[in-house]
């Protein structure tokens, strides 16, 4: 008898708990459903309709469905070249941020006077508003009065100022070879690395705190030199963190809009897909094509999110 009463009591407690849980979580769920999930579904429908910004008030659920947008988007040279640009941008941006962030975390691992301040300074590019950061970079790189070109043509003896953000490619001579370098693209990648390496730095620093010193001391007793310590002791312990960070950074860099739009507006060979979506939407007022291109982006993104979730299950710390 006592078991049945406890069971019943337990049942009502868990029912009450379930009710409280749903009540507490539903405002969040409703907002996310209405402003994130439904809009994404709506994008799918818009992508199959011929909708222009000017006749937006006539657009509805039961318009004429068509594949034209996808045909336009997928057969246009622009999409494929911008996908290539986006890929270069994300791979180099992510890789650079990981390498620089890792170096920063290792360099700042051991305490010294003023380390707290240096650590805080490292985070500046990441926390500061992207619009202000992009504007300062644009000014620094300005061919007429930017400090980079002033020093380049002055102290470094460049022949002429380089307009970093509007030059598609420039030839650089190394060892007698002339190599075309995508100037503007590399500049936006440098900006991306500058802005996001602190993110990697933070996570790697946090992970390094958990690396027990005793193993390193033991290895040191066994005669391991610094490079071996890094290769065989520190790096293996950081690898899961680095893997998760790479996927996470890649996802966000792949879809980054602000940085490229603010620096170049997508010109000079820097048109990444997200800037392309924006240009379809605002520049041409072609909602259907903008949606179709956004969906292409979303499809790629979904694959990456699934990869991330797979990693994150193994390594919960960064989630």
């Amino acid at each position, binding site marked *: 008898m006592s078991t049945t009463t406890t069971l019943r009591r337990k049942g009502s407690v*868990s029912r009450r*708990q379930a009710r409280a*849980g*749903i*009540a507490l979580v539903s*405002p*969040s*769920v409703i*907002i996310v459903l*209405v*402003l*994130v999930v439904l*809009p994404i579904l709506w*994008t799918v429908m*818009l992508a199959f309709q011929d909708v222009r910004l000017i006749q937006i008030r006539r*657009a509805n659920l039961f318009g004429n469905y068509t594949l034209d947008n996808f045909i336009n988007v997928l057969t246009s040279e622009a999409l494929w070249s911008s996908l290539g640009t986006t890929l270069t941008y994300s791979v180099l941006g992510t890789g650079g941020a990981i390498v620089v962030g890792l*170096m*920063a975390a290792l*360099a*700042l691992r051991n305490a010294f006077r003023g380390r707290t301040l240096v650590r*805080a*300074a490292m*985070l500046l*590019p990441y*926390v*500061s*508003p992207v*619009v202000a950061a992009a*504007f*300062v970079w644009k*000014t*620094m790189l300005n061919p*007429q*009065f930017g*400090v980079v070109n002033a*020093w380049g043509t002055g102290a470094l003896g460049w022949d002429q100022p380089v307009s970093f953000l509007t030059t598609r490619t420039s030839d650089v001579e190394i060892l007698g070879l002339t190599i075309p370098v995508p100037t503007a693209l590399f500049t936006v990648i440098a900006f991306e690395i500058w802005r996001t390496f*602190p*993110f990697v730095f*933070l996570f790697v620093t946090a992970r390094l705190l958990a690396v027990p010193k005793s193993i390193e001391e033991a*290895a040191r007793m*066994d*005669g391991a*030199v610094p490079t071996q310590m890094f290769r*065989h*002791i520190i790096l*293996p312990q950081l*690898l*899961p963190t680095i893997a998760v960070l790479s996927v*996470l950074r890649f*996802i966000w860099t792949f*879809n980054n*809009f602000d940085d490229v739009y603010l620096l170049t507006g997508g010109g000079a060979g820097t048109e990444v897909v997200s800037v392309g*979506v924006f240009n379809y*939407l605002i520049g041409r007022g072609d909602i259907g094509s903008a949606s179709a291109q*956004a969906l292409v*982006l*979303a499809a790629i*993104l979904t694959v990456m999110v699934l990869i991330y979730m797979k990693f*994150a299950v193994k390594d919960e710390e960064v*989630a």
Partner: protein
Amino acid sequence: MTVMKETPIRPSSPAARPPRKRHFSRDVAETKLFRILRWLVIVGLLVVTVFPFYYMITLSVRDIGSLISDPARIWPNLAEISFDAYTSVLASVADGGQGFTGFIITSGLVALGTVALTLLIAIPGAYAVSRLQFFGRRQISALFLAVYLFPSILLAVPLFVFFTRLGLRGAVGVLLVVYVSQTIAVSIFMLRNYFQTIPESLEEAAALDGLGRIGTMLRISLPLAGPAIMSNALFVFMIAWNEFLFALLFLVEDRDKWTVSLGLAQLSGSLEVPTTVLMAGSVILTLPIIILFFGSERLLSEGLTAGSDK
């Protein structure tokens, strides 16, 4: 720890161990090299991260003429330091300025409103997801993670179209709601992780003392989560204050409604406003974030490792 088992420390196996003496010198050489490299990296990174902000400040107190005639000089002459750029950028358009005072008010209201609304909605949500058993809990958690990873550019098209159709696109309130929808997922994520670290025995004790679920949440869990909520609030403020894309999509047509980010981005495209004046605008845009950040560096970096922006 499992990693350690898979990677034997090679030098400890006798065959791989190089002769003692050569090894010793390699060790010394490497240690010296890394000591130098370490300082090069530190100084290099410090210059690279701090210089743009230093440059921003010096330009904001210089005259545009002096900048154009001597762009290589990176410090202002004492005689030329002036704060005219600040008065000019803050003054209203009617007074011949750029109207940044109005932008600051808009940005501040939107950011504070986003923080308040997000916390109000996300705290109970996070508590429920971390503590209470209910149907669909895991799916909801997964939904929030997916939303958190989804970038805003994908929402740009449908939200733009939707609010244009409703005729509400220019409303500041709509922007605020969109911001809340963007920050809620990451908030729930950060707070959920924190709630999970509070020992359940504490809450059970409170329940034994006769506190109900909501009472336990309000009196026990919330006060304990205070620091986490604070860092989450800072983080949400930072996202909303810095945000650019949705402000651009929603508010660009009406200058009176611009946020600081949007105002700076729009004006930097025009040739009429001197760069030094806009640099003053950049300082104004950046300063609140830097003050918040240095005022609570520990809190915020904890917040940043718990979540991230897009």
